[in-house]
């Protein structure tokens, strides 16, 4: 069962990593991805907004998809929200498995899907006071698409219609 959290606070990389191996001796590989706030173009801060009622469910579904595709012994996704300063982490993905291919591939998969299928929006604040909403990138969509469609069944009671989750189409034509 994956660990999924949305929080304003910083997270502890070493503690989260240790939690995936603690008390077990079948873990041979832990892969991680840490997304960090850059200071491009004089960025002063990044403000992350999300859709609270939906976010954790979306993250949990993405993690369940990784667990359906790879034999993981553990999986952790932590996404920060609120005001984030340059140099601070934004997101952490951790995957553990007996062998390295499963850990490395599922880690790449998780960050690709997270970027296109979890309801977060970034607003950049610059030193001169201007703000700008970050636009979605076509290459993020392409990176997510290379993993194909959802294979995991939706969890029972997770919203009525078995509609497949996707982000590619606009809401109106």
């Amino acid at each position, binding site marked *: 069962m994956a660990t999924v959290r949305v929080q304003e606070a910083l997270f502890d990389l070493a503690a989260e990593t240790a939690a995936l191996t603690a008390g077990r001796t079948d873990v041979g590989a832990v892969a991680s991805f840490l997304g960090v706030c850059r200071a491009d173009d004089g960025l002063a801060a990044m403000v992350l907004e999300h*859709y609270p009622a939906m976010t954790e469910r979306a993250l949990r579904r993405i993690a369940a998809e990784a667990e359906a595709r790879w034999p993981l012994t553990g999986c952790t996704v932590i996404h920060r929200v609120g005001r984030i300063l340059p140099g601070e982490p934004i997101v952490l993905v951790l995957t553990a498995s007996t062998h390295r291919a499963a850990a490395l591939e599922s880690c790449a998969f998780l960050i690709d899907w997270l*970027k296109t299928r979890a309801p977060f929006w970034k607003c950049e604040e610059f030193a001169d006071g201007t703000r700008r909403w970050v636009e*979605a990138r076509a290459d993020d969509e392409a990176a997510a698409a290379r993993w194909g469609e959802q294979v995991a069944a939706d969890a029972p009671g997770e919203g009525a219609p078995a509609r497949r989750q996707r982000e590619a189409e606009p*809401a109106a034509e």
Partner: protein
Amino acid sequence: MRVLYFAWLRQKIGLAEEEAAPPPDEVRDVAGLIRWLAARSPGHAAAFAEPRLVRAAVNQEFATPDTPVAPGDEVAFFPPVTGG
């Protein structure tokens, strides 16, 4: 029907959420709801001016233009997501 707005849609409309009661015989899906909402105010019109930039969720599930909407639903509108 509860309607939520995020990111620049929220800013253009000036509301994070609102109650809406579109006539059920006129508004049957996400696309119909967008047409109906866009007529509510200049802010709504601006937010929905470029529908290709707008994404939606119905009851916290990503939706498409033909996803049905009904009284009691929670419908959210937002730009393409940019987390990660």
